[in-house]
């Protein structure tokens, strides 16, 4: 049994909040560059150049790449041979968010009640997903999620008879309807199967992959490539102003489904596909 004190979790989370918002992943930067080569629209090319310049400024000056520093969403892999000392994991993560968002000059975007809309002032609470895994390590991943792209996500309970064509149509329809709103070029996370809520979680979790990282199952990988190609033919383009770069990538995760059900969830990420991990 390994013992981990809550203070080290808080410190790690604080740092994750800041670096995730300042430092865009190299995979996304590389994708901007490669799509800049292929982009047909001059306006679209100009926008990709601005995004590259923006990422550089944010990294060098340690300022947020986007003013919407997001809902702090965490995926925690908690080894079952770990004992958390000195408090609870949830409190430790929230304290890290409080410190990271305040000391890091990150925008606090969370309201304490969805209807009354009063800001909590410290970007807490976080949304925390915990998976109990084997081993004696804790892996904490943050994926700050902006409101503009989150609002364009969707879920549909398809009929099993709708099959893969139904899934493709729904994903493409969601992206088309989202248009310029989620800050294209987007990253599209798709969850297929499970239950209503499981499909949404699969979609969100798939967004933790790096751009270009294909699903292990060749059939799902082929579906990802097919959807990416089709989405980039929609013409939406960078910022929705027209062009051939609408999505940087499409990630799909699947899970067993009920004989009666075919849930499909689409979670859209803006071009700031932020995620950072730490292992304790």
């Amino acid at each position: 049994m390994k013992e981990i004190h809550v203070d080290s979790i808080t410190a790690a989370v604080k740092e994750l909040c800041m670096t995730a918002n300042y430092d865009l992943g190299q995979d996304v930067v590389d994708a901007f560059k490669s799509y800049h080569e292929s982009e047909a629209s001059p306006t679209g090319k100009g926008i990709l150049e601005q995004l590259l310049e923006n990422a550089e400024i944010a990294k060098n000056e340690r300022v947020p790449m986007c003013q919407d520093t997001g809902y702090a969403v965490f995926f925690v892999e908690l080894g079952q041979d770990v004992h958390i000392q000195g408090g609870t994991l949830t409190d430790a993560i929230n304290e890290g968010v409080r410190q990271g968002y305040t000391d890091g000059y990150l925008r606090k975007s969370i309201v304490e009640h969805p209807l009354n809309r009063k800001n909590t002032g410290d970007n807490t609470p976080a949304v925390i997903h915990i998976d109990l895994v084997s081993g004696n390590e804790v892996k904490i991943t943050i994926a700050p999620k902006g409101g503009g792209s989150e609002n364009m996500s969707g879920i549909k309970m398809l009929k099993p008879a709708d099959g893969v064509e139904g899934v493709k149509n729904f994903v493409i329809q969601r992206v088309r309807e989202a248009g310029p709103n989620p800050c294209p070029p987007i990253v599209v996370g798709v969850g297929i199967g499970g239950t209503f809520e499981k499909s949404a979680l699969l979609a969100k979790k798939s967004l933790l992959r790096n751009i270009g990282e294909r699903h292990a199952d060749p059939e799902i990988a082929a579906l990802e490539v097919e959807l990416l190609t089709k989405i980039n033919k929609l013409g939406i383009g960078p910022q929705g102003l027209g062009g051939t770069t609408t999505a940087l990538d499409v990630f799909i995760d699947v899970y067993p489904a009920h004989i009666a059900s075919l849930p499909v969830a689409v979670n859209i990420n803006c071009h700031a596909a932020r995620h950072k991990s730490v292992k304790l």
Partner: protein
Amino acid sequence: MDWVRITTPATDEDIRKLKAGDRVLLTGYIYTARDAAHKKLVELLDEGKELPFDIQGQFIYYVGPSPAKPGKVIGSAGPTTSYRMDSYAPRLIEQGLKGMVGKGSRSQEVRDAMVNHNAAYLAAVGGAAALIAKSIQEAEIIAYEELGAEAIRKLKVVDFPAIVVNDVHGNDLYEEGVKQYSQPM
């Protein structure tokens, strides 16, 4: 592609010259306002009261900036999604607002108000918040400080980069751009 320069407050003539697709550099003072601030502004108009700033010829930037680091006037400041302001925008356009800067498409009501009252809608690059902040030289909260990121700020901008989406002639760059680049599947 050339840049069109606009200095605020803008005249009707300035706005009429803008065409969808033009790249614009804005200089002068612009005002920030987003969801909660818009609600308050329209409530003031409903009550027959004065707005906290003279809206004639002005531009509103839909933004909720991140906090300024020490020594900086503002934090990162990219545009927020505009459609959430659609139910309020026509009222402000009727009052003399000449321009809005945000991201994403507008409702038909807003587009009609722009055509009828000579106003334009510009897109800034969503997410390019650290880059855009470079063009903001002063920032002062002038109303609704309690709203935090949503407070109304008066910004002094120099060469703030944007792209015209909706002009007074009824053009919409989002529709035209997508039409131009969409391919058969």
